[in-house]
């Protein structure tokens, strides 16, 4: 197995996540795309760990941390989405454009 195949895969996933982030209208789907991006990062980290084989398995530890933080972030994010939905009766990100000129 080559290292680059994992890196390229991760890059592709990351790019897809970026695309989804910029294109999707529903806030939940935007968060979904963010998860995709974080997932790609995880792949990168683990691939590098497998390549470098550090004594403490740094890559994997970091991947765990990323997962944890992602989970926390999703919790908060969805709570915010809930509040937005309560106030604005809509989960469409285009409706949240008050902070404009």
């Amino acid at each position, binding site marked *: 197995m080559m290292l680059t195949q994992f890196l390229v*895969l991760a890059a592709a996933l990351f790019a897809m996540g970026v695309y989804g982030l910029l294109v999707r209208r529903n806030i939940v*789907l935007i968060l979904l795309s963010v998860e*995709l991006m974080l997932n790609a990062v995880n792949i990168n980290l683990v691939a590098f760990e497998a390549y470098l084989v550090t004594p403490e398995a740094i890559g994997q530890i970091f991947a765990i941390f990323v997962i944890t933080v992602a989970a926390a972030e999703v919790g908060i994010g969805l709570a915010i989405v809930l509040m937005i939905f309560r106030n604005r009766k809509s989960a469409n990100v285009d409706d949240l454009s008050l902070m404009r000129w």
Partner: protein
Amino acid sequence: MTFADWISQPVNWVFLIISVAVLVSGFRVVTSKNLVHAALFLVGALAGTAGLFLLLSAEFVAWVLVLVYIGAVVVLFLFGIMITRAPTGFDEGLDADHKAMPAILAAGVFLMMAWSSVDAFGAELISSTGSPTSTELIGESLLGRFVIPFEVVSFVLLAALIGGITIARRDLTPLEEEERGAV
């Protein structure tokens, strides 16, 4: 190493199949017109990722991924979808109108990252396949060298917990206030 050599290793077949699945799932996550389908395709992507982790001798991470991500996060997502009364069926207005720019940017990101990766690492090989990373090692590492980040992350989780509750708490209506007070 030529492609013929590479494809002759059975590991790479597996890799190929799993990566195709992941890519397709990931693609469908961002392009699906159905909200729930998108969430479910994320599940597929995450599962495939877990499989890749196994290939990379990161069993513990793979399992954590499945447990936390798929088991909790995606469920949370589904709850969020349901609570925000998103239409569960086919929804046309899910994507923005102008997709060209994001596509270009995404392509640009991919190209840049891919190129720099290839340019940096070329044909480097991952050598340690087959020997699993012991959980003991990870445990020792987490509570040894990385104990402070470990504690901090637990604070983060706590903050997220409290924050989530606080943000999403519903204020009592005057009627309910009266009831509570009377009681």
